[in-house]
């Protein structure tokens, strides 16, 4: 049972995630965890900024677009394609200055983010369990 294959099947993680795994080796054994942790921190910061920005009286769509662009970039770089897809829609609503659309996308992106976060966390937990039990993680 290959968890990553499963995630890919449901579209949570695309082949970019496999690229990250391939960059990990004995010299950089924690690369994937490090990058994913950065992604979590950065995304949570951006999601908070987005919520705050959408609460303002005069919404700064340029600023919102800049944040979504960042989130789109990071999610693409780690292979979180469902998050990335919502970001694309989000940017379109920004361009239209459609506050309803933006709020809907924020909710959706939060949802997709928490889904992929859960997937990644369980992936790491499983790997940790295997390593603790004395096994090894086969790399594709």
């Amino acid at each position: 049972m290959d968890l990553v294959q499963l995630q890919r099947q449901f579209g949570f993680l695309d082949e970019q995630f496999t690229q990250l795994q391939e960059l990990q080796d004995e010299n950089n054994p924690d690369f994937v965890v490090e990058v994913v942790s950065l992604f979590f921190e950065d995304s949570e910061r951006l999601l908070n900024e987005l919520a705050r920005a959408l609460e303002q009286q005069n919404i700064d769509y340029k600023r919102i677009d800049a944040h979504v662009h960042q989130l789109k970039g990071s999610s693409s770089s780690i292979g979180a394609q469902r998050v990335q897809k919502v970001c694309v829609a989000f940017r379109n609503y920004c361009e239209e200055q459609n506050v309803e659309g933006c709020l809907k996308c924020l909710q959706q992106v939060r949802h997709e983010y928490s889904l992929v976060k859960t997937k990644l966390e369980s992936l790491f937990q499983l790997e940790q369990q295997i390593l603790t039990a004395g096994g090894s993680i086969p790399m594709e």
Partner: protein
Amino acid sequence: MLSCGGGSGSCSKDMAVELGDEPHVLAVDDNLIDRKLVERLLKNSSCKVTTAENALRALDYLGLGNDTLEGTVSEVNMIITDYCMPGMTGYELLKKIKESSVLKEVPVVIMSSENIPTRISQCLEEGAKMFMLKPLKQSDVKQLKWHLMKCRN
């Protein structure tokens, strides 16, 4: 490590670095995750890497900025930069580098998550060596390094 040709005084940067030396790449990107990724990709291709989080910091590092400190300018063999950055874009950074008599020969590569033909031709016309689509893969960076080594010889 630079080695000078015998006889006359001047060193040519292009002839200087021997095969097997690690090229020094300056990677510029405002996205933290992308910086980490490009750094790993370049290090895996035996490059020495310095990262900068925006164009102004990059210019300072290259010795072209307003805040460049005396004696801190380093040799770089290649610059790879994101296109979309707040403040100065990668395109504007490219122009500044090409305007510099000291740095115009340094190959500059532009990266972008957006595949916009006019953007690509604009960058290539301004002197970018290559334009790459994000997210970058190991094969992209291997190809890049191959071009870099080829240009040097």
